[in-house]
């Protein structure tokens, strides 16, 4: 009997083993099979009511905005207006938000947003704010990740083509803005062909306070090359910042050809800690500048513009040992630093190779004064002395690199349209996957921090062609999501993006989700024209200006009958949403208003103006389907003739 038992046991045991083995086999099939063979759909499927694991913030490029996506689903969650007017919410149209778009060139209604970067603490993304640069009229914006609204925009004086921006240092000490189009510094009238030696490429270091407030600490007057992209050092290299350059030829025309003549351009290594100390000890010169600093206040719901007029300019040659050039082949584009801070990758966009510099070798070369020359008195380090390695034949046209935190790097190749995985240290290519088509940036959540969250990678492509149903000549761009947890990258999902995403930043949803605000508190509303209850609603005449203090609540306006307005008046509708319930906005639209609607969040006050041109009784209404009685949420304004004597009168329900 005993014997029989043990035989049975062995038999059962081996059965178990077999079935376990089967399970394992299934798992390996899952991770090694292609997208078609695997359960890709299941892995990007976020069931109804479930949340995505990551937030992804994709720049809108020429939309001027920032879009928020969930990963892995690829669902777009929001478009945050930043540098462009946004009639959907009234951003840039409302009296409160118009100042956000002020610059030294006046009101600029559009921008070209490029590189979002999330604030960091100890080299990790912390989910407090996200910064993004405007390339065309140089500016940096800070967006709150509690309200998902733009809180601050600072203009960068003396810059042009604000491209190598807006990257943050590992404790958000600075957000940095570079100059891609060298310009006279300060601006002046001069012949263009005298550019060489006379233009400059200022690099601007903007200090970020504990409350997020930005303030230009200093500008580094660099030679007039094109500073293309940048990234901060981290870990051991914290305190340094690295910028790729092109057009070290300083060509002023037909740059397509003339800026591509030098075999090597530079990566500029800037020891910002040294310069910071120099400035703190009184170094640098105060120079005239003119730039707008726009700050949005959440208690007044209002932005204000301050015009600033000074900036501290530092000549890099005046600070011993602060700036060096590392020769880097083939007009490098992306400038990426690995999680350890040791490797600085120059993505030589006109070649097949990637050049990787070593931070520790760079320090040694500096110590040994291992220079091969000088450019405008800035030492050029010996190429062979800083070189850590070369990634050979990765593809054609490398642009950008991100990291997974497991010793691997991922580089996009624009011309050969692929993402290539390679190993840090050995420089061997491990995998390549096609992208559809002509990939620009890529993003791994935290992929440019000390602690990447290396689960997914998205590629953002410049060309869409046939990826989706055709929509005429103009198409949205495409993005692809890859699973990067296995040895090989696996394409899981393809989704359209809005505008032209240049770069993106991603972060675990957990670091943001709980802090996301649901309402603005009415009892903290300090807007000058807020009516925080229906009893405070009124109309006031001030010459031709008529201020209407109006409230909304499901589902009526107070007041909803307005009289005493005359042709030629300028009516300010100050609308306060009295709701204190999550996701109950009200809209406001006035017939014939030469502006946008307002979309007012609970507890918020927003203002638009209306200049009635014709006598009559004109309706206004709520644009957001707020309740079952939304259709009834409407009102009338009586407009009388210029010289009429109709007194101001505002009523609700006859009272």
């Amino acid at each position, binding site marked *: 009997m005993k014997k029989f038992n043990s035989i049975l046991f062995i038999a059962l045991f081996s059965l178990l083993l077999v079935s376990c083995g089967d399970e394992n086999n299934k798992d390996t099939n899952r991770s090694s099979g292609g997208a078609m063979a695997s359960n890709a759909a299941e892995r990007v499927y976020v069931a109804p009511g479930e949340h995505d694991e990551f937030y992804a913030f994709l720049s809108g490029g020429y939309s001027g905005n920032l879009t928020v996506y969930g990963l892995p689903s690829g669902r777009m969650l929001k478009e945050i207006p930043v540098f462009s007017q946004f009639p959907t919410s009234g951003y840039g149209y409302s009296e409160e938000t118009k100042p956000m778009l002020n610059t030294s060139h006046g009101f600029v209604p559009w921008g070209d947003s490029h590189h979002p970067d999330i604030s960091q603490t100890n080299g990790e993304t912390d989910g407090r704010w996200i910064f993004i640069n405007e390339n065309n009229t140089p500016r940096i914006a800070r967006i709150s990740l509690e309200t998902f609204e733009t809180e601050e925009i600072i203009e960068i004086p003396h810059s042009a083509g604000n491209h190598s921006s807006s990257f943050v240092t590992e404790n958000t000490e600075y957000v940095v803005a570079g100059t891609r189009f060298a310009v006279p510094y300060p601006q002046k009238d001069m012949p263009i062909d005298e550019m060489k030696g006379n233009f400059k490429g200022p690099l601007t270091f903007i200090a970020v306070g504990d409350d997020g407030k930005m303030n230009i600490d200093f500008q580094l007057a660099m030679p007039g090359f094109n500073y293309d992209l940048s990234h901060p050092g981290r870990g051991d290299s914290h305190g340094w910042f690295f910028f790729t350059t092109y057009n070290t030829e300083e060509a002023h025309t037909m740059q397509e050809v003339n800026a591509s003549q030098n075999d090597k351009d530079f990566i500029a290594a800037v020891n910002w800690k040294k310069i910071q100390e120099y400035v703190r000890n009184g170094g640098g010169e105060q120079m005239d500048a003119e730039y707008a600093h726009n700050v949005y206040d959440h208690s007044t719901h209002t932005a204000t513009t301050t015009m600033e007029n000074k900036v501290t300019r530092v000549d890099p040659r005046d600070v011993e040992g602060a700036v060096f050039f590392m020769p880097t082949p083939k007009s490098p584009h992306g400038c990426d630093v690995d999680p350890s801070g040791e490797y600085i990758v120059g993505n030589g966009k006109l070649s097949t190779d990637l050049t990787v510099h070593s931070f520790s070798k760079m320090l040694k070369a500096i110590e040994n004064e291992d220079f091969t020359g000088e450019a405008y008195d800035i030492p050029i380090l010996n190429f062979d002395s800083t070189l850590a390695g070369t990634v050979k034949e990765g593809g054609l046209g490398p642009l950008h690199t991100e990291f997974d935190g497991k010793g691997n790097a991922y580089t996009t190749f624009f011309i050969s349209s692929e993402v290539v995985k390679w190993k840090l240290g050995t420089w061997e290519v491990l995998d390549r996957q096609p992208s559809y088509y002509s990939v620009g940036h890529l993003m791994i959540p935290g992929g440019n921090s000390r602690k990447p969250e290396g689960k997914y990678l998205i590629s953002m492509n410049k060309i869409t062609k046939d990826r989706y149903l055709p929509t005429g000549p103009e198409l949205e761009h495409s993005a692809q999501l890859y699973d990067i947890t296995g040895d090989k990258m696996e394409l899981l999902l393809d989704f359209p993006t809005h505008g032209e995403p240049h770069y993106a930043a991603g972060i675990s949803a957990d670091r943001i989700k709980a802090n996301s605000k649901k*309402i603005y508190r009415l009892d903290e509303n300090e807007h000058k024209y807020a009516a925080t209850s229906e009893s405070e609603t009124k109309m006031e005449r001030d010459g031709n200006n008529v201020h209407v203090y109006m409230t909304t*609540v*499901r589902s009526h306006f107070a007041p909803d009958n307005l009289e005493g307005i005359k042709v030629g008046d300028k009516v300010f509708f100050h609308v306060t949403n009295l*709701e*204190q*319930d*999550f996701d109950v906005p009200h809209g406001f639209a006035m017939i014939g208003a030469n502006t946008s609607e307002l979309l007012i969040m609970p507890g918020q006050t927003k203002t638009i103006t209306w200049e009635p041109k014709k006598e009559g009784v004109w309706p206004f209404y709520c644009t957001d389907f707020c*309740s*079952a*009685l939304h259709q009834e949420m409407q009102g009338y304004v009586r407009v009388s003739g210029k010289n009429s004597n109709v007194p101001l009168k505002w009523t609700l329900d006859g009272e």
Partner: protein
Amino acid sequence: MKTSGLIMIVGSALLLGLFFYPLWNIKLEAPQYPDPLGMDIYIAGIEGEEEFDIQNIDGINHYIGMKKIPKPEEMWEFNTFPLVIGGMAGLGILLGILGFFGKISPNWFLGWLVLMTILGILGMYDFNNWLIDYGTDLDPKAIIKLTDSEGNPLSYKPPLLGSEKILNFTAHSYPQTGAYLMFIGMFLTLVAWIWGKRTTK
């Protein structure tokens, strides 16, 4: 008698929990309220589970013409209940102390329990009346007026105990910590009486 006196003191002292914890809770759940709206009913007033819940419940109720949730000063109960509960707790503790020193018979404990039970039932009766009034005495100008199959106006009275569907909402009405402490306390006074009876025999 010492032990039963102590149990009586603890039991009646548990009533004091009602000054800190809600007696009852009514939650309103609907598809568009994944985080239900809730109100905690204390002996001295009604509070929202979340800061703005009362305001939002009032906002929803105005469609069907319900009155606003009363403020403490608008209902005599919120002044009287704390006095009754405080008084009963004090009385119970006093009886317990007297019992502890053997000055009184444990039957006093039973007497206290009977009185408390009567007051409790009266309280529930009053609460239910308020719910009926609240759910049926509607503004004649109400935006939405619904009738049952016989043409009578619908009642929006939430259940006294349990869950019930009211239009798009499901109302859940259940006792809370304060009530549970009271129930345990009352049960303990029963134990005190039985214990006292047994030891004094």
